């Protein structure tokens, strides 16, 4: 709790926020990632599709949903490469690429990775990709895109 006469500020007490994330109703999505599968949900009552998945339909208010696997070839809709890392992603070590790709009626977010291990390359809007799942260095499961061109 140092006080600096030079800067005219002092430090607050440390305040740690760590949250519980309730995933019981979308557990299949997280389990799917561990099995190399990516799931969205579809409303059995009105047919609306959701990615990321949700347990309730925002359109017809039904909670009768079914799981749909998202697979095949996707198309990059937009992307960025981050050079400034947020707290919690220091582990990345080098600029990482986030993209959104469409797979039919579903769109998903993922990290775009190069074919060659350790190499960073950029996708292009319209590039065809396949989606894989994997864990990052902190153990969080996510989607990775690779070019199929």
């Amino acid at each position, binding site marked *: 709790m140092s006080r600096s006469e030079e800067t005219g500020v002092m430090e607050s007490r440390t305040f740690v926020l760590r949250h519980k994330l309730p995933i019981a109703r979308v557990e299949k999505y997280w389990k799917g990632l561990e099995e190399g599968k990516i799931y969205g949900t579809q409303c059995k009552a009105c047919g609306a599709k959701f990615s990321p998945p949700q347990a309730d339909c925002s359109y017809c208010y039904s909670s009768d949903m079914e799981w749909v696997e998202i697979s095949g070839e996707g198309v990059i809709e937009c992307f960025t490469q981050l050079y400034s890392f947020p707290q919690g992603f220091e582990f990345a070590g080098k600029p990482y690429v986030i993209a959104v790709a469409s797979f039919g009626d579903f769109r998903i977010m993922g990290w775009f990775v190069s074919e060659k291990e350790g190499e960073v390359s950029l996708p292009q*809007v319209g590039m065809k990709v396949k989606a894989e799942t994997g864990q990052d260095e902190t153990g969080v499961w996510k989607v990775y895109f690779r070019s199929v061109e």
Partner: protein
Amino acid sequence: MGMGSETRVGIIGVGCTKFGVRDDATIQEIAFEAVREALQDAGVTREDIQLSVVGTAGTRSYELMPAVPINEYCGFAGKGPIRVEAACATGSAAVYTAYTSIRAGIADLAVAIGFEKMNEVDTPTSLAVGGRSGSYLWEFHQYGTTFPGYYAMLAAAHMARYGTTDKQMAMVAVKNHRNAAKNPKAQFRKEITLEKAVGSRYVAYPLRLFDCSPISDGAAAAVLASEEKIKELGIDNVVWIEGVGYSSDTANMPKRADYAGLKASVEASQMAYRMAGIDDPLKQIDVAALHDCFTIAEIMAYEDLGFCRKGEGGKFIEEGESDFGGKLPVNTFGGLKAKGHPLGATGVAMIYEIVKQLREEAGDLQAELKNYKGLTHNIGGTGHFGWVYILGV
């Protein structure tokens, strides 16, 4: 009072602090600076205020429930407060809360205060807060999104579809820095060259350092009153709220239908235009404050608000149409890009700048007025919230 929907609402006073790194003041002190200026500008005292609305995006400040501390410090205990949050569009939502209270006949004199102190935490923490502006579980948690990253994705889509260039984006930064150099309240009071902007390092490809607004501290305040109260007070220096529109979009980026524009901008502007009777913004509006948190955002806003056709935003800046002497001067005060972007303050600060313009008090930055109408366009998140005001005298 009690005029209901017939009540016109006017802005009778505005205040805005210097934007920048404001380690010299607490949130209470910085809000007080803006409120004092607004009350003096309106010629009213704190006792005249019936309702205070306090807007902040929040989380970055050590004060997590700041409305009451600010209300106490400004001497408004008992007059509200209502705390409002709409990410970077918080200020516009705060003004709307004051506006609707007056339209409803519940209050006849209200103050909207917007503030943010983003520099109380370090940059990685600030990025981790901004990166949570979408849907945490599906975006930040898995992919480490940042706020520049979100807009960078839109920029990539816009560039791919319409051929918008690095250089056109940099031109927005050059214009807004040139204007901010003349604004005593601005965070960056220096001009930059096109070469410097296009040569700066990437923050989030394709956005470079000079495509991004800074991390800012600041506050702004606006005093609103009913037409009846304005007459009673004998105030004739009034800027009227002639139109207001709002909209929003999905939290999750994968749930958006398109990435080369903001649906919330289109819908909010159409709602405000309808209310204010605007069918040709270029002809009817004299000066506009557009949400340029990133240079691509100003380019998309030209299109989404109908200043040019979709895809021609790059050409609009290139041809000088948004500069002084162009078809519609935009961000004459330096924009968020160079005046600064203290999130909760921004929407109120845009109102401050347009009120100054419409009262012809903008000094070296005064735009030419024909219809005495101005516009503010304020986006929260990556098009998560959209707000547009049409002001007139």
